[in-house]
């Protein structure tokens, strides 16, 4: 039977990993990820799961070790945050080029400097082009569900790609929430053992991570891009299966009160629930507003985004990272490029919010949205740092 408990989300993520019959995990401590690694090592120490837990000496070695283990055919997990993710950066595109189904939890945290341990998305954005599937969760339940789903998606024979589950640091990882763990028997049914495409074993010698020059490199890059694009079919199918088995539905783009809304707000991650409250308030005031929550960051859901935004007059995109010297936040540029070929396009506004743990309460969402609703068009296509002191 599925059980409902109150639990810190980071610990719940480790519990979810524990339900997935992993063979090996390598995790290096970093705030606010540490509780995931600590609790995973508890699960191993108490004999609740049969896995090797490698206390690596850096995140660089964490990702390297899970690549090695994944190469043997093992089901592997790692988790990190911020500077740790930046240290892994070099190895991330190698993991995807080697088509290894690694699952990684990211407790999203601001990147230094200055040093900051609190939440934003500046750690995960520089990893965008690494060839990993990247999803964002909004609450503890999604963190559990998507962690379990990730193994199935990554290991699917048509995918074989690494996947990262973005969980907002502190705002989510350190919250105690009411969550429901799926029944273990059902998880076993949903997630059968990994069937690796190739393994490092003397029974069948093979070479992994070969060297390729100009004559093959382009083809390998195109193959990786196609694999990532194609993974969307599997992601959708896995979410459908999840809905059938566990009753919770997931979509690449979630719409909240968007019907007939003239102005839409777009969020990624835990801010979605705060924005929902603002939408409820503004709808009560009679404003025609709605909310779009982007869950799937890579592969980017172009069709779904176009569809949900097609009737809006204005779109307010929130970003939790800066593309310095660029066109605004990274989500903003993506949404703009998704809409470029549409004949009728909404005016797009960009707010950079919640950097380095800066709180964004419902009142901030309300005032942001009102400002956009009232704007006659002169501030469209610009970006603003919300509440910045200058």
């Amino acid at each position: 039977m599925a059980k409902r408990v109150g639990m810190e989300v980071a610990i719940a993520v480790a519990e979810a990993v524990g339900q997935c019959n992993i063979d090996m995990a390598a995790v290096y401590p970093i705030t606010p990820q540490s509780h995931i690694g600590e609790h995973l090592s508890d699960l191993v120490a108490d004999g609740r799961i049969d896995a090797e837990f490698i206390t690596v000496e850096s995140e660089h070695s964490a990702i390297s070790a899970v690549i090695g283990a994944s190469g043997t055919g093992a089901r592997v997990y790692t988790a990190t945050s911020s500077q740790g993710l930046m240290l892994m950066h070099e190895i991330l595109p190698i993991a995807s080029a080697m088509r290894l189904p690694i699952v990684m939890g990211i407790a999203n945290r601001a990147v230094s400097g200055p040093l900051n341990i609190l939440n934003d998305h500046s750690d995960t954005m520089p990893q965008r082009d690494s060839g990993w599937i990247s999803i964002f969760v909004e609450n503890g339940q999604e963190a559990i569900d998507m962690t379990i789903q990730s193994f199935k998606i990554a290991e699917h024979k048509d995918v074989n790609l690494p996947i990262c589950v973005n969980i907002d640091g502190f705002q989510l990882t350190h919250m105690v929430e009411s969550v429901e763990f799926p029944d273990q028997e059902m998880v076993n049914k949903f997630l059968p053992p990994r069937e690796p495409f190739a393994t490092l074993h003397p029974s069948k010698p093979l070479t992994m991570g070969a060297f390729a020059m100009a004559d093959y490199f382009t083809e390998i890059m195109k193959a990786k891009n196609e694999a990532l694009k194609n993974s969307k079919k599997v992601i959708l199918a896995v979410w459908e299966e999840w809905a059938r088995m566990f009753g919770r539905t997931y979509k690449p783009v979630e719409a909240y009160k968007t019907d007939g809304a003239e102005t839409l707000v777009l969020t990624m991650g835990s801010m979605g629930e705060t924005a929902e409250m603002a939408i409820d308030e503004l709808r009560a005031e009679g404003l025609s507003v709605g909310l779009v929550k982007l869950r799937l960051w890579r592969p980017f859901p172009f069709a779904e985004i176009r569809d949900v935004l097609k009737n809006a007059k204005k779109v307010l995109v929130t970003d939790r990272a800066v593309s310095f010297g660029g066109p605004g936040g990274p989500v903003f540029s993506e949404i703009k490029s998704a809409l470029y070929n549409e004949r009728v396009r909404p005016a797009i506004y960009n707010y950079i919010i919640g950097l380095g743990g800066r709180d964004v309460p419902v009142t901030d969402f309300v005032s942001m949205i009102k400002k956009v609703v009232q704007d006659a068009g002169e501030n469209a296509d610009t970006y603003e740092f919300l509440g910045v002191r200058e």
Partner: protein
Amino acid sequence: MNIVENFDLFAPRLINKKELISAGHRACQGCGEVLAVRLMCKALGENTVIASATGCMEIISSMYPTTAWEVPWIHVAFENAAAVASGVESGLKSLRRKGKIADSDVKVVGMAGDGGTMDIGLQALSGAMERGHDMLFVCFDNEAYMNTGIQRSSGTPMGASTTTAPAGKVSMGQKTWKKNVAEIMVAHNIPYVATACPSYPLDFINKVEKAKKIKGPSYIHCFTVCPTGWRCGSDQTISLGRLAIETGIFPLYEVENGRYKLSAEMPKKLRPIKDYFKSQGRYRHLTEDQVKMIQDGVNREYKKLLNKVKCLEAWT
């Protein structure tokens, strides 16, 4: 030594005939490193998985879509061969324990050059050794970044000229003593550390076989001549390797559970290092005073090593 002189008689019976790194790879003529890799593979046998760092041995052997490897082999990046090897070891261990793969002994081996071991890979190596994985790590040390064009590393010896520590009007080339990574590995209290050189193939093979049998971490520092980088003849690979040992600039020894033992190949009396220097372009600029300074350093280090051998003999 007799053993080496009678090599032709012993070799067919003692050495695994199967080639696990096949011919047709792209190594330079006279490459000491690929010779050492070949011997290592013979000693390891087929039940081996190798994790290799980026470097000469990686690019010469794995040009897609070809491969020279007849054993399972993985390359990820430059600095992480030891971390990848530790992951391979953990993965195999877990899968074996859970009955997902056959329960057979497979030795996991990490390999890298001097840069990948002594500089950029030192942290990953230290971590893997400290964690006690059942793996062998072999450093193939040709004393500079040869793959990128002979730049100095912490393995480059005092006085050698490289492309980033060149000899010049006011420079003698490398101004620092070679980092002693074998000693750093000894300080990790791992069961087995050895130095070796393919110019003494039986000694090297014996050391690899010993390391293979150990359940736990082991480290071999293998000295490999690089004619391209050292600016010497490609026919001098074997003789220069022997001179490095005979002059004591790279002594052969083993440290088993902390106990030092000089290898049988070490001569009673060392030859002067100038015998070793004279045919190498990288040392050609050195003055007599500089050679003497380096000779004093070699004598000092060798004495330290002999003292450790004696001291630990008395102690154990």
